């Protein structure tokens, strides 16, 4: 972990808490959805650069939250805050409060490895380990000691591949290298690997940007199925994708969270002119 990572979650004055009045940027509660992750006054600095400014955002349980915005707007930075991936970046400093089920994830006593088992991640480019399909999925359960025996592990691998919609295509070649699969299959393998440790939240950083439309459609269908069991946060450059897969959409611009609301509202009647400009293709 980088020494530069400083956490001021327990700092007094500016840190908003769950009890604080809701800032205007946060849409009023959408139905009865429980809040899984509560981010308040989150700021990220890369050296002197203030990359993310005073972000307040609720991530609802069993919903897909899409983060959209132009390049460099801070959406990926925010995503990486949610499982402390920013810890590994030199000169990166996160200030503010992020709570997963009411527990501060930047608490110094918290085990980051455990956190990342609870908050899994899928990246832009499929990145299977140079191992067999089986070992890719079994990797997490093994290091976290989730499986008690070989039968357990087999069961977990099988179920994860099934949930990721890949089992039919790979059941007879689990020993083949994961890197031999097609791009879309590799990405589903990475999703299977992420869900094998039974996380609560899955973060996805442009998971379809390297895939063709059919593989993309499969992943999108999968995302919708996965939200029954997981809470999903997805960063995407495709606004159509955000519109298709998410229930809530948050628009970031120049490090600010400009607007967050029900996806339908954001794409039919956004409140902020900047959101309107971005989603309708009017940004200079």
């Amino acid at each position, binding site marked *: 972990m980088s020494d530069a990572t400083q956490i001021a979650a327990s700092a007094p004055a500016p840190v908003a808490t769950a009890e604080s009045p809701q800032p205007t940027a946060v849409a009023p509660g959408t139905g009865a959805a429980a809040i899984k992750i509560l981010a308040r006054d989150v700021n990220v600095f890369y050296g002197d650069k203030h990359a993310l400014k005073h972000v307040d955002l609720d991530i609802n349980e069993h919903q897909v939250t899409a983060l959209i915005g132009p390049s460099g707007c801070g959406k990926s930075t925010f995503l990486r805050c949610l499982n402390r991936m920013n810890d590994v970046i030199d000169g990166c400093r996160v200030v503010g409060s992020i709570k997963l089920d009411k527990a501060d994830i930047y608490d110094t006593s918290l085990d980051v490895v455990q956190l990342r088992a609870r908050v899994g991640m899928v990246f832009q480019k499929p990145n299977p380990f140079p191992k067999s399909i089986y070992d890719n999925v079994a990797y997490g359960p093994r290091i976290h000691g989730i499986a008690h025996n070989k039968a357990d592990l087999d069961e977990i691998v099988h179920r994860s591949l099934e949930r990721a919609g890949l089992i039919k295509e790979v059941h007879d070649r689990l020993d083949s290298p994961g890197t031999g699969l097609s791009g879309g299959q590799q990405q589903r393998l990475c999703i299977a690997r992420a869900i094998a440790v039974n996380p609560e939240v899955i973060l996805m950083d442009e998971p379809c940007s390297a895939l063709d439309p059919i593989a993309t459609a499969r992943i999108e269908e999968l995302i919708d199925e996965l939200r029954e069991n997981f809470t999903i946060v997805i960063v995407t450059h495709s606004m159509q994708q955000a519109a298709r897969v998410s229930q809530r959409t948050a628009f970031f611009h120049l490090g600010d969270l400009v607007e967050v609301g029900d996806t339908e509202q954001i794409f039919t009647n956004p409140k902020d002119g900047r959101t309107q400009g971005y989603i309708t293709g*009017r940004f200079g």
Partner: protein
Amino acid sequence: MVDQHIVRQFDEELDELRATIAQMGGLVEQQVVDAMAAIARRDDLLARRCQEADVEIDAMEDKVEALTLRMLALRQPVALDLRAILAALKIAHNLERMGDYAKNVAKRASALAHLPEVGAVNGIVRMGRLTHGIIKDVLDAYAEPNVDKAVTAWTRDQEIDQMYNSLFRELLTYMMEDPRNITACTHLLFVAKNIERIGDHATNIAETVYFQEKGTRLQGMRPKGDRTSYAVVTPPEADEAS
């Protein structure tokens, strides 16, 4: 005004869509004016010209449909663009219906030109003038665009309904006075109904303009004034006899 799109062609298409609606609106407005003039002046020739104008309006509706279909498929519009495109589609449909009603008025004007004159024509002409004013206002509200103007026009539809109510009673009275009036009065009754329907479509346009600009529906119930469905008029003779 909102910024330009990065893809300039999209702006050009939206402009073309708006221009087509404006042009179509102008044609419908003229058609309504002509149809009413044909009634007022008992002008069969104008009535026929007015009926022919409907073809052009129908063609423009087809053009709006083709444009919107193309834009939905190629631009995948969202937010205000999506609302503008849907609004254009709906308004074109409303205008086309208004054109049909105006055409029907013109047909009846042809028939009326060959029938004895009935006194109620003045009331019809007044109703037509009021409706024309509302059409003009909703089309301006769309062109500017101006939500306040749309809302004002929306509430004025009640005046048309009230005029229709009194015309309905007046025409029934003429018919009871002299059965020879029945043919002309029945035509005028349909004319009045057509004008009332034109007014309803104009208020739909006002609602669409509101939605296009605000992204929400126009709240509250519009005061509805057409009570003719429940009207009963008893002939004076029957009163005396009883």
